[in-house]
């Protein structure tokens, strides 16, 4: 079965420090990859996507993600975390199989302490 894994339930980081939220995928072909963020009692907000090309993708709010095909990973990064970045982050993959069904990871809660 195709899947997306986010191995960390929670990531804790101090404000101003770099952050990484990990994601690996097991999806056939060359899926599109996404990161979404969810604030309390809100829907998902799109952060960034990888389709093809440069392995480093830049997105909203200073976030970026690094695609590694050999490791089937798509880790979310930010050079300097803000307290306001604290939220639930979801990695997702869109298989190119005409199902058009996003496969989500289980989510990682990011907690940035002042």
């Amino acid at each position, binding site marked *: 079965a195709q899947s997306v894994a986010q191995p960390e339930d929670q990531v804790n980081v101090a404000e101003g420090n770099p952050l990484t939220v990990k994601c690996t995928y097991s999806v056939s072909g060359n899926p599109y990859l996404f990161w*979404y963020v969810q604030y309390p009692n*809100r*829907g*998902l907000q799109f952060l960034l996507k990888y389709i093809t090309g440069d392995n480093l993708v830049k997105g909203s709010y200073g976030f970026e993600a690094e695609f590694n095909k050999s490791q089937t990973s798509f880790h979310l990064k930010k050079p300097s975390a803000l307290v306001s970045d604290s939220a639930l982050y979801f990695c997702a993959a*869109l298989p190119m199989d005409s199902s*058009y069904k*996003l*496969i989500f990871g289980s989510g990682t809660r990011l907690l940035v302490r002042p």
Partner: protein
Amino acid sequence: EAGVTQSPTHLIKTRGQQATLRCSPISGHTSVYWYQQALGLGLQFLLWYDEGEERNRGNFPPRFSGRQFPNYSSELNVNALELEDSALYLCASTPWPGTTEAFFGQGTRLTVV
């Protein structure tokens, strides 16, 4: 431009009742997707509608159904509600199938008591 809107924001139903959730996609978007976000289960794909037709459904029983109207808005119906149906139901839309990012609404929190 208005985003994806869902109504109601919160819904409380009794076990065995039916729930109807509504979604209006972004103007010009023809594809609507429904996802269930249940506690501890992450986001699970429910249904995909495009041009008024159901195109794909996830691993959910038939009591989860829906439809898409000519204006591309959509309705999700859950019959014979069970306690485990309590979840946040998210709707998303894309301009057409297979587009890159999906745009999500704020969700409907369904509580079954």
